[in-house]
């Protein structure tokens, strides 16, 4: 059993443990989950440190590290050829930082779940199942395996939102589930199409191996998704473009982009704090990761054609999300919309197809992972105390919760891209990369960078406005004296969770090479794959 | 001169009265009496038609049989009514509808 398998299935051991333990030992579930996530984080950190970011082609196994490849399903389908599904894991500079992020956010989420009272057994079992699925998604290099993990991820989330959520939890859970399923069902069609178009050069069998899908030579001539000289069309759109669009929509729902974002505010608002943390910290990153690994990796030709539209969607998401955040009166919803805006930078950066832009996008994903998780946690802190999140019900919190205010201010400033924090590096390089795209002739015009930068301005506006409305001024609370009693400053447990998160954001902002060192060669190899089609 | 027709007429009247009693009366004993009426109407007809058999008097003999049978029937009928009364505390046939589906 390789390191990655251990990373993926460690939480499963916790699941089995949780399910076997009797209910009266309910208090031990969280310790079990904590143990699993701590081990997982340690393991991920170990892998991260020992990663050697050597260069290589994006479609070569040798580029990936900690590779595990085992035959999984082998079926002789007669005239349809042989079915080949592998248990194929491996990481490169794109997936490894996200693995580490996921392990960290999971740790945070377990910490945030400390006071869960409602059916602990189911809760922690589902949380750990989700953990397994998420890890699997980032490790899988076989498309079938990827899809399995992708779908497995939905199930625990549905229940976590639908059972432990807020007032409109059923609505939010169903909306989230159907939205994501809508994307992934069509993804399945493309996967099947790709399967029939790609052959394993060694065995001649059709394969789900993603790396084979990235290499034009492995395509069956004349097949539906054939790389070169493909004349297949659906509704007048070239087949490969259709494949790209369908996969993009599937992942774009996850990112999310405008106008496919409406599941997000509902899901975030209704989900319990730990699940919000996971949603914002990990789930959205799966979208960005999918676009990089799959849309760009398998359909580089279509990506090179469509990146103008991707960039436009990114810019629209940035501005639209930011303006919507400005209109919110519910703190959690405000942060949910700010996520839409910040994830727009990711899409814009990816679409620029420049090293700066893609690196910036990856960095932005990591930074947003930490920061949005911290922000949702901070909302959870005040919500736990008075069960209210309405901005205008609070005023002058700084006087009664000085430490909390300091944490909020740091998280807000970090999120709005104050230099020294990670979001700045991400956003600045997305903008620089996008601006640079015109010199590189990748088809992204400079005005997109200019409009995208408006998002940075607007993020300052909504975060500072919130800071001014909720935290500064003379103390005036809706709940009066009662709330003042309830609103105690952050306790030790909360500080243990918050401090490392914000410290990490700071560390990454000061030493971006921690990420770029791992990432850089993968970005270059991805660009090698894409640039010939520009 | 009293012809056969007159006998038949009286017999028909007796039958009708009996039939009426059977259908319309709300008392089982009256129904039993109605039945007697009908039997008597038949007996009357037997006797009236007996004149055409002057050798064996089979009409009169059948009449005698019928009278005996009627007496037996009344005995059985009264016993039934008594048992019905015991069970249902009524002898009004309207109220005894156990034959209904």
């Amino acid at each position: 059993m390789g390191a990655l398998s251990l990373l993926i299935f460690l939480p499963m051991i916790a699941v089995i443990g949780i399910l076997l333990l009797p209910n009266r030992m309910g208090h031990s579930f969280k310790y079990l989950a904590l143990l699993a996530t701590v081990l997982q984080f340690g393991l991920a950190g170990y892998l991260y440190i020992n990663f050697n970011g050597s260069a290589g082609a994006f479609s070569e196994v040798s580029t990936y590290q900690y590779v595990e490849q085992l035959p999984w399903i082998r079926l002789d389908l007669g005239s349809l050829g042989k079915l080949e599904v592998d248990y194929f894991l491996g990481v490169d500079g794109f997936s490894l930082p996200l693995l580490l992020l996921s392990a960290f956010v999971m740790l945070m989420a377990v910490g945030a779940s400390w006071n869960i009272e409602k059916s602990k057994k189911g809760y922690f079992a589902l949380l750990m199942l989700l953990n397994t699925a998420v890890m699997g998604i980032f490790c899988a290099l076989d498309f079938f395996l990827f899809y399995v993990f992708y779908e497995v991820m939905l199930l625990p989330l549905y229940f976590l939102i639908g059972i432990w959520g807020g007032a409109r939890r059923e609505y939010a859970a169903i909306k989230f589930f159907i939205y994501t399923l809508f994307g992934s069902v069509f993804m399945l069609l493309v996967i099947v199409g790709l399967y029939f178009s790609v052959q394993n050069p060694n065995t001649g069998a059709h394969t789900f191996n993603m790396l084979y899908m990235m290499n034009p030579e492995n395509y069956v001539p004349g097949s539906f998704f054939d790389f070169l000289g493909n004349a297949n069309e659906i509704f007048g759109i070239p087949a490969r473009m259709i494949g790209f669009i369908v996969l993009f929509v599937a992942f774009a729902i996850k990112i999310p982009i405008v106008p496919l974002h409406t599941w997000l505010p509902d899901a975030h608002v209704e989900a319990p704090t730990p699940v919000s943390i996971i949603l914002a910290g990990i789930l959205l990153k799966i979208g960005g990761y999918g676009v990089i690994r799959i849309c760009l990796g398998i359909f580089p030709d279509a990506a090179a054609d469509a990146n103008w539209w991707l960039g436009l969607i990114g810019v629209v998401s940035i501005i639209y999300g930011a303006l919507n955040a400005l209109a919110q009166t519910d703190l959690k919803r405000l942060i949910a919309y700010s996520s839409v805006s910040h994830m727009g930078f990711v899409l814009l950066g990816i679409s620029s197809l420049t090293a700066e832009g893609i690196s910036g996008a990856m960095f932005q994903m990591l930074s947003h992972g930490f920061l949005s998780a911290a922000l949702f946690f901070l909302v959870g802190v005040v919500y736990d105390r008075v069960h209210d999140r309405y901005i205008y019900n609070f005023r002058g919190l700084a006087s009664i919760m000085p430490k909390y205010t300091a944490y909020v201010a740091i998280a807000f400033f970090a999120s709005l891209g104050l230099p020294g924090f990670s979001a700045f590096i991400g956003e600045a390089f997305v903008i620089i990369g996008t601006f640079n795209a015109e010199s590189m002739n990748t088809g992204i015009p400079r005005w997109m960078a200019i409009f995208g930068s408006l998002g940075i301005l607007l993020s300052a506006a909504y975060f500072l406005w919130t800071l001014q409305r909720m935290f500064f001024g003379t103390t005036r609370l809706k709940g009066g004296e009662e709330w003042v009693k309830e609103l105690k400053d952050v306790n030790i447990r909360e500080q243990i969770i918050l401090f490392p998160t914000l410290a990490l954001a700071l560390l990454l902002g000061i030493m971006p090479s921690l990420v770029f060192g791992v990432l850089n060669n993968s970005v270059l190899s991805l660009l090698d794959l894409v640039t010939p089609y520009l | 001169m009293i012809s056969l027709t007159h006998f038949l007429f009286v017999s028909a009247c007796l039958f009708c009265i009996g039939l009426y009693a059977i259908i319309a009366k709300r008392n089982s004993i009256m129904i039993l009496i109605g039945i007697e009426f009908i039997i008597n109407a038949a007996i009357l007809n037997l006797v009236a038609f007996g004149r055409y058999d002057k050798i064996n008097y089979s009409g009169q003999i059948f009449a005698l049989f019928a009278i005996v049978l009627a007496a037996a029937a009344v005995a059985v009928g009264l016993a039934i009514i008594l048992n019905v009364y015991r069970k249902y505390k009524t002898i009004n046939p309207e109220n005894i509808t156990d034959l209904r589906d």
Partner: protein
Amino acid sequence: MSDLLNISPIIGSMLVVLLPFLAFLIQAILGKRSQSGNIALVSIILSTIFSLIFVFAEVWKQEPISANVSWFTIGTHTFTLGILLNNLTVLMQLIVCIIALPVHIYSKSYMKGDPGIHRYWMYLSLFCFAMLGLTISSNLLMMYIFWELVGFASYLLIGFWFTKESAVQANKKAFIINRIGDLGFLLGIASVYSMYGSLNLVELFGKDGLFYSLPASSDGWLTFTGICFFIGAMAKSAQFPLHVWLPDAMEGPTAVSSLIHAATMVAAGVFLLSTVFPLFNQTVLLTIAIIGCITALISAYFAISQTDIKKILAFSTISQLGFMVVAVGVGAWDAAMFHLATHAFFKCLLFLSAGAIIHEMAHLKEANKLDIDPQDINNMGGLKKWMPKTFILMSIASLALAGFPLTSGFLSKDAILISAFEWAAQLNGLYFLIPITLTLVSILTAFYIGRLIFKVFFGELKIKVERIHLHEANLSMLGPMIFLGICSIFLVFSWNPIAYHHSFILTGFSITYPFAEIHSLHIILPIILTISSAIAWVIGWNWYVKGKYPLNSGNKLLDISMNQGYINEFYNKIFVKSTLNLSKGLYWFDQNIVDGFVNFLATIVRNLAHFSAWIDRYIVDGLVNTIAGTAYYIGHLLRWVQNGRLQNYLGFAFTVVLIGIIYLIIK
């Protein structure tokens, strides 16, 4: 020992930057336990010493030095962290240190007893770190980082009294408007990066730098880049139309205003313009000159009628920054830096003096339980009697501001004005509007600062109280003021009180102007300015001291000036309100159209499902049920006969027989 003192300029300048940061960290960790501010004070003293001895003395008028270490690599490009020491940067660093030091000393007694004083020192150290880092950054990205950090520190300090609603409004406004400038700066960086592939200042603008060897991709983009950088400078240096944050920023403690919002941070814009000066082409330079000129004019106009002592000084700062920007615009960025240096001292002194006055007025207010605004000059008057030293110091600073001979301001202002005239003389025509406007502004400057002095120090105290507890500020406040007062004299900058060419700053930069020198101007212009300033003071004396004020309060021009040209209201209405409305509208759109569409789809699917369920139930299943039902009803048709009544049965039987008989009969 000699090894210890042998610190290279690079290490020295690093220490200069890192000491305040260390102070910030220590104070952040100590929190409420460090109230005295000694840590911040020690760090800034050491910084100043290092800056003067190991950096400025070593580098000034010598070859530039720079050192870089790689920071991170993206793609094939490595970004560096580094220090660049040349005349410009070491001068700026020294100015910041020398201004920051007296402000720290002053703050010790000015801020005494404030419940949040531990935060004050922490923020002040953070600001010093960011500002000093900004001055010596060797590449634009690093400069941008410090650029935003000074904005952040300024945000924290403006909102220092965070329970005051106006303060938190002001700091939000300051940060957001500075963000606009930051975006300009960022886009400028992106543009430079995409054109030249480097952000290092030496690589770009050094001898045979990329800027000179690589042609720009197009003139349009060069203009764009220049404008972007200028927008950055505009926001930081409070140029019209982004000047609105600075008057509001006066909500912060006065010591902060003197350091950040008068002397150092707001000058960073001018510093940036000087740094990237080669980038600017003619179009951009002209834009810079025009904007600077408009700023100088309107803010001088607004300053005339303000009643808040700090707001007058704030507008005066904006106006002076306008002067510097014009100097950059006409190509005389050395004059801009010169004025930046002189202005830093006398404006800082003005603010500190104002702080001393406000301090006393606030005591007066508390002692007598009055409901007055301690910053309103209409409440003051005759303070000369109680605070003579403050009066003298403030007068020196005012004379410097007005450009009176023998002061430092005289030299630097002349340098700008004369350069502007020479520049216009070369271009002719409408270009003369700029230097003429500037001359007018100089006169206005003399007038409004005269008004301030007259209203505050002359005449009688306007508020009537029994016990007047006014006295001179204590030594730790007065000392820094005296130091700054000395620095406002010409001798600090030049041995020649009349000709600005001999000042050491200008000789240090020694740039060649693109226009010819006109000698007669150097004599005529100072004389004209001095005389007209004197006239302005005479008028001011008559109006404000003698009480022969000619204007009534309903005057339209006065009204506009008092309300700062209604620019804030205009912005509120046009930008803020419309953005908020747009965001509300978009949220409505999001809820009702985008999400509405999703929910609509869901409703359609649900209704379709209901419909098909209806069909299934009533049509498909209905058919089956109809057949079954028909059989059932037919079966039931005669069911009622079976009612259990013997008599009925008999009756029916009889009826049927009867019917049969009748049938037989009829047949």
